């Protein structure tokens, strides 16, 4: 923190001059980049459409109110499908993520090549959104709940695998040493020293992912992968915004409940 002496007093500045200049240069470059990006977007936008955007938005909301609750009964089965997609998908995803995490963690991996493979699987699964997985699976196995379940499972591998292998890398080495010193085999070491240490993180991560998956599975129907999204898509295509609003209310309620459950369980395990 430099002090400069002028004729009669000291002046305090937070940074050295060069540091300050570098920060200004960084800001300048960022702003220039932002303006360039904004130009690209502006060129691809038909600004005339924006003139009535407020009116359009208000009329959309106006058509959603009041929600058409007469279809609530027929939405219960799709909602149950959505819950199944999220829950079974999470269970399958966690089951597949489990071995991947042990292969990917530096302290439990059997071989660096296996570690590279597991990391590649985890990154690919994480990079691709559940909706993209669903689009792919709908063309491969046909539309329906099964495509949704597999999409959720494939997306969950990366998320659960990453958090889990980080948890494995952070375990205390002492219990591992103690169990190894008692003459335990490799599997016994994993079962009696590694597993008990990561169990709370494991349960917490799985429940957290389940909570996210509930949200994601509500929209999988947009691409034909089952659940309440199918009804939402149909209602949007029919411009029946009152029905869309009902679906939104149901989604909102489900998400709130699942978030509450997830927070409770995570609070109890950590």
């Amino acid at each position: 923190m430099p002090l400069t002496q002028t004729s009669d007093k000291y002046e305090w500045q937070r940074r050295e001059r060069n540091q300050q200049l570098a920060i200004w240069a960084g800001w300048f470059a960022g702003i220039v980049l932002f303006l360039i990006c904004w130009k690209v977007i502006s060129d691809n936008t038909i600004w005339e459409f924006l003139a009535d955007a407020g009116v359009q938005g208000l009329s959309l909301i106006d058509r959603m109110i009041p929600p058409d609750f007469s279809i609530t009964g027929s939405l219960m089965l799709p909602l149950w499908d959505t819950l199944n997609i999220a829950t079974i998908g999470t269970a399958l995803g966690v089951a597949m993520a489990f071995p991947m995490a042990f292969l990917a963690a530096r302290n439990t991996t059997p071989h660096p090549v296996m570690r590279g493979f597991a990391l590649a699987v985890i990154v690919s699964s994480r990079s691709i959104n559940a909706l993209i997985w669903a689009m792919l699976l709908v063309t491969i196995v046909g539309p329906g709940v099964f495509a949704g379940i597999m999409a959720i499972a494939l997306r969950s591998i990366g998320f659960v695998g990453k958090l889990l292998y980080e948890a494995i890398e952070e375990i205390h080495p002492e219990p591992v040493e103690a169990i190894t010193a008692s003459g335990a085999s490799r599997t016994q070491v994993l079962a009696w020293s590694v597993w008990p240490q990561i169990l709370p993180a494991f349960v917490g991560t799985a429940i957290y992912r389940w909570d996210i998956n509930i949200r994601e599975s509500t929209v999988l129907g947009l691409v034909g992968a089952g659940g309440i999204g199918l009804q939402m898509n149909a209602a949007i295509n029919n411009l029946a915004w009152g029905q869309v609003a009902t679906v939104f209310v149901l989604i909102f309620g489900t998400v709130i409940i699942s978030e509450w459950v997830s927070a409770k369980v995570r609070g109890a395990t950590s």
Partner: protein
Amino acid sequence: MSIAIDRVDAAKKGHWKPLPFVSDARLRWALNIGVLVYLVLAYFSVDVNWARVSEGMERGLNFVASFAQPDFISRGGEIVTGIRESLTMTFTSTVIGVALSIPIGLGAARNIAPLPVYLFCRTLIALSRTFQEIIIAIFFVAMVGFGPLAGVITLAFATIGFMAKLLAEDIEDSRADQLEAVRATGAGWWQWVNYAVQPQVMPRLIGLSLYRLDINFRESAVIGIVGAGGIGATLNTSINRYDYDTSAAILLVIILIVLASEYFSGYVRKWVQ
């Protein structure tokens, strides 16, 4: 206590079992039975067309095989345009979203905002967090028309929910004695936020912004499905045409960009802290 002594006695006789994860026996059994009942219910209500699934196996293998020979060329122009649009959307929306989430995050922190402001900001955050990006995108496409602008607004809106919530939590967790010390010097509200709060939350704010940049890129690949710009439309078309070689090329580009951004943000985070 008696349970612990029982366990020691049993262990002395050679019967040792690890402590159960759920210590309350009734809750443990209720959970087990609940899971069993759910599985039975789910098994009978999820109907899967196994004939169709096994029919699709061949196509599944085709898709996996196409990762070995991705086709960057035949739709090269569209891929480049789409990815460029996705990247610009990502950057613009993250900047706008972060800029907007700072005041909202300040307003949603109970220790520095008055109650009415707090409730307003929290409601905004809850709204933004509940709905998936794609639902928000449908709404904004209906409002401002097809194109990347709808995507930018969508992603910026989603960014607000994410950033403002985490920022508010971070501000609420900041050390109270530093806030008190700066306040005791007679600082006004702005000086207080600038010199007591901001230095405490800045490293996390930068880390979260980079993380959100990453998320926004991944989302920008999806919202194109409903017409909000980006690579999603090209990807959707290629999948629907069973043109898996092009799909594989696009997915590989997405994976590589996510990897690069993860590497870059890890580097920046280390440098900031």
